[in-house]
């Protein structure tokens, strides 16, 4: 089974810097981590290949520093890594991103399965996985919490709002993984050292044959009006006096606010 895993690096802090010109996130120089849900997608891929054989390729679109999340994928057991990176991809919205990733996936020979995290913690749109599937013209299953191989089909358990759903799909297929699907492994030092020394392929817009007008800011119909970190009021209400009086006052206040 040939599995492509699409991962994303996200800023490691809520203090993200915003480019005032484009209203998009400045990624250069910001400490970044792998999007937590994507770790689950990598774990699912590595686990499937351990059970059924095959190859895991981990891919991300981003600036050169996005290499770090690919190395994490390699340390967790992925066989290959591809960084899709080009200045003209900068500021891509979900449509442009899924277009670029779909082209990169097609460029990387045959695949049976594309795995992604359900959504990224920074943008929180959950639009890229369905976008990739649409661009590839393959079926998609979102919010997976279990994947089983049934001969040439996959049986996927989905987590819905109030119920579970089990579906069967033929391959090739795109599955986005919910974080409940597994517990990602923690790679040891040897795996990390090995991953550090592995070669990472870098593809630009020429190598994956994408139209530059369909990616980056040009290919992105979404216009971000404003991005900001929410401010939290930390000053709570203070009750002073005897403990029993305070407790009563707190309870009354909570009842008033319809919290209890």
């Amino acid at each position: 089974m040939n599995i492509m895993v699409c991962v994303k690096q996200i800023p490691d802090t809520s203090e993200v810097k915003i480019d005032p010109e484009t209203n998009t996130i400045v990624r250069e120089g910001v400490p970044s981590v792998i999007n937590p849900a994507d770790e689950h997608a990598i774990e699912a891929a590595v686990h499937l290949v351990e059970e059924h054989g095959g190859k895991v390729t981990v891919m991300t679109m981003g600036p050169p520093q996005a290499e770090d999340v690919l190395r994490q994928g390699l340390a967790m057991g992925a066989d290959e890594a591809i960084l899709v990176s080009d200045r003209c991809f900068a500021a891509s919205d979900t449509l442009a991103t899924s277009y670029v990733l779909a082209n990169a996936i097609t460029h990387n020979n045959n695949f049976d399965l594309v795995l992604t995290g359900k959504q990224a913690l920074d943008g929180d749109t959950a639009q890229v996985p369905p976008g990739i599937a649409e661009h590839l013209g393959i079926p998609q299953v979102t919010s997976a919490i279990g994947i089983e191989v049934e001969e040439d089909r996959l049986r996927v358990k989905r987590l819905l709002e109030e119920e579970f759903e089990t579906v069967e799909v033929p391959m090739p297929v795109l599955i986005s993984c919910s974080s409940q699907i597994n517990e990602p492994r923690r790679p040891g030092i040897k795996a990390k050292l090995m991953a550090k020394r592995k070669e990472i392929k870098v593809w630009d817009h020429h190598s994956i044959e994408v139209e530059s007008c369909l990616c980056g800011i040009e290919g992105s119909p979404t216009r971000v009006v404003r991005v900001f970190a929410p401010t939290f009021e930390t000053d709570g209400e203070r009750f002073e006096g005897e403990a029993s009086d305070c407790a009563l006052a707190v309870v009354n206040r909570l009842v008033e606010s319809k919290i209890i």
Partner: protein
Amino acid sequence: MDFSLTEDQTMIVDLVKQIGEDVLAPQASEIAERGEFPEENIELLREMDLFGIPVPEEYGGLDMGFLTWGLVGELLSYYCSTTGSIFGAHMLAQYPIMAHGTDEQKQKYLVPMTTGEHIGAFGLTEPNAGSDAGAVSTKAELRGDRYALNGTKVFISNAGPAQTYVILANLDPEKGTRGLTAFIVEKGTPGFEFGKDEKKMGWDALPNCELIFRDCEVPVENVLYRPGRGFRVAMDTLGVGRLGMAVGAVGLAQAAFDAAILYAQQREQFGKKIAEFQAIQFKLADMATEIELSRLMYQKAAWLKDEDEAFEKEAAMAKVYSSEMVSRVTSEAVQIHGGVGYTREFPVERYMREAKLFEIVEGTSEIQRGIIANRLLRENRI
């Protein structure tokens, strides 16, 4: 001189900090309180490949030297002193085999200790032989192609859970240190049993057990280095052991300091945080200075070791200074906490109980000073 870490060292340090914060620290007090060998932590260290840091790659290690080993050991002791000590005691069996073993011995015993599949323990101390290694009375007698061991070892760290033991016995007690011989003994060898596990002032989760040998037969190929050369094996091992003690003391002291500086900024008396009082500030300043000095001392000694230079004097200096430092620092951490510091609600009372051991094991402070003076006089002979 360059104090910066390599990329690989940084990666390892970051990994240990991550497991320390996520797994080790939250359970450290409970493990000590429960007094059970923390098998799950050892399994984690195994999975993270932390047992083979200075071991050559051909035996499954990372070949990254004793400085890196020290950095990891300090962090482990910082997050969970018990785990740090098991990690340190393990090296006492790993190192003599790594330094003096034959290729067969390394394949058979070093490799599984490097993966962490087997835990190691080192047995020198006896009821009447500790500081005085020449007084070892466990006897080894050659019988055909085997040595029969008879005697008792005490206070052996990791004993019980450990599978591989490096044991010092004497071929001829008349000869003192020149009769000493190191043997590799596997757990389960007939005639090798465990005696009582000591009830100690602290370190309840670290086994310190008696080893009892009654006609325990060990094949001649399990002699480490050469018969009669066990003193050399023991001294080399204790050199690394002293380094490990300094490392553990620094980790424990740092944990006590961090608890103290946090508490000092929370506790209010006379209408202000106690950290605003100069009496407390001076304590914190002295504690941090002593910790920093101790850290530099073990790092220098480890660096010398990695450069294949003589490091015994520096290791002894690091050991004696750090072990006395950790007693002072943990005691001050309790003092800064005041009454609550004396309760089991806060970890500092445990740190203080644990600290004392550093002044006693791997050669008491008095023995360390003897070693240092010995070297100094040899270096400055007129």
